[in-house]
């Protein structure tokens, strides 16, 4: 608890002039039009030291770009963030990133800048956004002093909106990817999970396209509707 409070009230992080410039360059990037079709979007997944949004920290980020309904394998991103101390043993067993690798990871400032540069202003897509968004936002604030305001689309709501009959039987990511024969080679690796999620986005976009929905903005609308449906039912 103390550690989290320390982080919370920590002074503004110090960046080098070069890092400041990179951050400024990212902030200056023009916003994208979410209503445009064929927009590049970035599917993201993170691994953390645990599931506690308040106390656990970011270990790795995996991201895959989807452009025009296609995943570009060359346009993908993976980084392990350097940890002050390795996460607990039971946690290591889940994500498979050993203590050594965790301690040898990239400097968090560099890692996060690289992630911003990879992402650009492309909308982010994830399955159960809240977790990934919170983890990423907190890390960005802690290490870069950046308050990220970004368009996120949550497939956990988009999928049931597109496939209403499956809404009750399909809850977690594994349900959906199993449904569409998507296999994850290494489960709980941020990049492998991001790739599987990206494949799920492909399925979602193909289905949405048949219903005349072709932009990220309309997928987001679909998500909001589903959130409302979930709220009232």
């Amino acid at each position, binding site marked *: 608890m103390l550690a989290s409070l320390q982080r919370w009230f920590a002074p503004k992080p110090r960046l080098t002039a070069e890092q400041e410039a990179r951050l400024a360059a990212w902030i200056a990037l023009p916003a994208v039009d979410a209503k445009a079709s064929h927009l590049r979007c970035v599917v993201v997944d993170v691994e953390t030291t645990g599931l506690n949004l308040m106390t656990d920290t970011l270990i790795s980020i*995996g991201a895959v770009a989807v452009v025009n*309904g*296609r*995943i*570009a*394998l*060359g*346009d*993908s*991103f*993976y*980084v392990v963030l350097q940890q002050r101390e390795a996460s607990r043993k039971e946690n290591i067993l889940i994500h498979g990133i050993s203590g050594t690798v965790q301690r040898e990871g990239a400097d968090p400032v560099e890692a996060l800048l*690289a992630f911003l*540069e*990879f992402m650009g202003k492309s909308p982010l897509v994830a399955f159960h956004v809240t977790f990934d968004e919170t983890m990423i936002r907190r890390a960005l604030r802690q290490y870069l002093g950046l308050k990220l305001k970004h368009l996120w689309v949550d497939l956990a709501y988009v999928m049931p909106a597109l496939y209403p009959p499956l809404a009750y039987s399909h809850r977690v990511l594994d349900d959906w990817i199993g449904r*569409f*024969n*998507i*296999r*994850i*080679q*290494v489960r709980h*690796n941020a*990049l*492998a999970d991001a*790739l599987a999620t*990206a*494949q799920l986005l*492909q*399925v979602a976009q*193909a*289905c949405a396209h048949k219903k005349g929905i072709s932009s990220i903005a309309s997928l987001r609308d679909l998500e909001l509707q589903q959130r409302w449906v979930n709220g009232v039912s």
Partner: protein
Amino acid sequence: MSAILPSELSFVTRHAPFDRMELPHVLWMLERMDVGYYASGEVIVSPEQGPVDRFLVIKQGKVHGEQSVAHASETDTWLELAEGECFPLGALLANRRVASVYRAGSDTFCYELPADDFRELIGMSAAFRDFCTRRIANLLEHSKQVIQAQYSNSSVEQQSLASPLSAIVRREPVSCSPETTVRQVLEVMREQRIGSMVAVDEKGRPLGIMTLHDVLDRIAIPQIDLDQPVIRVMSTRLSTLPPHALAHEAALMMAKHGFRHVLVVENGRLVGLVSEKDLFALQRVGLRQIGSAIRHAESAEVLQQGAADIRRMAHNMMAQGVAPEQLTQFISAFNDLLTTRVVDLECKASGLLGTSLHNGMCWMALGSEGRFEQTLNTDQDNAIVFDVPEGMTADQVREKLLPVAQRINETLALCGFPLCKGEIMASNPKWCLSLEEWKHTFNGWISGGSPESLLHASIFFDFRPLYGAQHLAENLRNWLGRTASENSRFLHMMAANALRNRPPLGVVRDFVLGKGNMLDLKMNGITPFVDAARIFGLAAGVTHTNTIQRLRMSASKMNLPLAEIDAWINALLFIQVLRLRHHDESSMQGKNDEAMDNKIDPEKLNELDRRILKEAFRQARKLQSRLALEYRL
């Protein structure tokens, strides 16, 4: 910055050919790949998409290939591809459209590499290249499908000559009364852009026809009075057929009588007009019709038409994907039919028919015709073997037969078989011999072994009877089988001679080209196989003259492994396909026979054909090595 998934790498490297490729090449490929998603039932690649633009590896799901070129139903699955398999290799290598529709059989994800990167990878990675071009049999199969797809476009447009004339007549015939003036008729023809005018009486019965072709001869040159009734300058020899008559009857009528138009008449009334041009589109001449037209032909003109039909038929058969082995056999069968009819007609015309000389002569096909391997462009190679009747000398018989042979050679030339430049024809006194003279001549070649004898042996020893007294040719064949197989010195020389013609492959496995950077498919491609098969056949006492039969039938006696024989035959057939396609394209471009050759520019071949051709030449080389081993050369 890109992060290639170690897991994706481990997936692709579990499958061929990626498991044998160098890691940097696989990474290079993965970095350039997309992942595409296809819902179950969605088309992934189809012929309609044009030349294939990407190389696909199935990541998850399954893909069905469906035959689309033939008339098979949509559900007719002939190929199922599973995870880790790549497609459509052949079409990509050939830079063509696919011949089949590839459809997702379930929710499917594919790794996809742009075609340009695919080609770069082929150049970069030897393992990948080998995989893509490895199995010649498979690729040949594919090449056949592609040829089929290429041709099917042109053949669907062709209606059948078996359709009734009523289906061909497009509009009401334009007619006039016989009293209309020539001037008026010409004006109407110009206005309505029609090529002919039929004069009919008040009941609609046709009386005469005038065509544009007549204008010159009957009107312009004689400078006739344009105000006279048109019936005076019209042709009144009319060819008529009922509407239910078939198109090929009209075609035959035009061919027989030289008319350009046939009137379609019902109950005496003119209902339509069919021109040569209308029938021109109907190219799919049925085999039966051609056959019967040739068998019943009474003049060289009809036979010429038959020869043209044979060519068209060959084109259509290529379109239908008939294998080269059958195709050349068909061509040979029809050419046999044609030649037989020509011989028959000329024997009749020269009064030889029914005489004892006629009963004792046999017309023989030599060379490629003798081997049943004729293509569309084949010189005449023929000879006569005859019996000497009591009380006559061979010279006396020859004197009688030579003029007939001369006529036959000339008529065959008219039918599109060019006269042999080497004078290897029955009209040459040297090749119009009695059975005893032939044996003597053959014996001289076998025991002599001069370069000229060996050359002659390579042409004449492929003889087979076509017309007349078959037993004479059979007698000669059996005699030759015994004599040649016993003479190992002769076979040894034949082998040494055959080995002089090396397949045009260089040390770095590339083509060695002749003049103008051309490859001669016949000389460099076919001949090594034909020569080797002849020697094996003669050594094993095989009486068949066909190269493939010779190889198969001499296998056990010569201890040739069957797998190797199959590889040789496949290679030969592939070269034959290329050659037929080359001839077919040349003839479609309207080149005449002299302009047709066997020379191709390998640079103009697509990647796939080029590679298979190299493989085929390598097979020729292997066959020659086997021959060298056999005769210790």
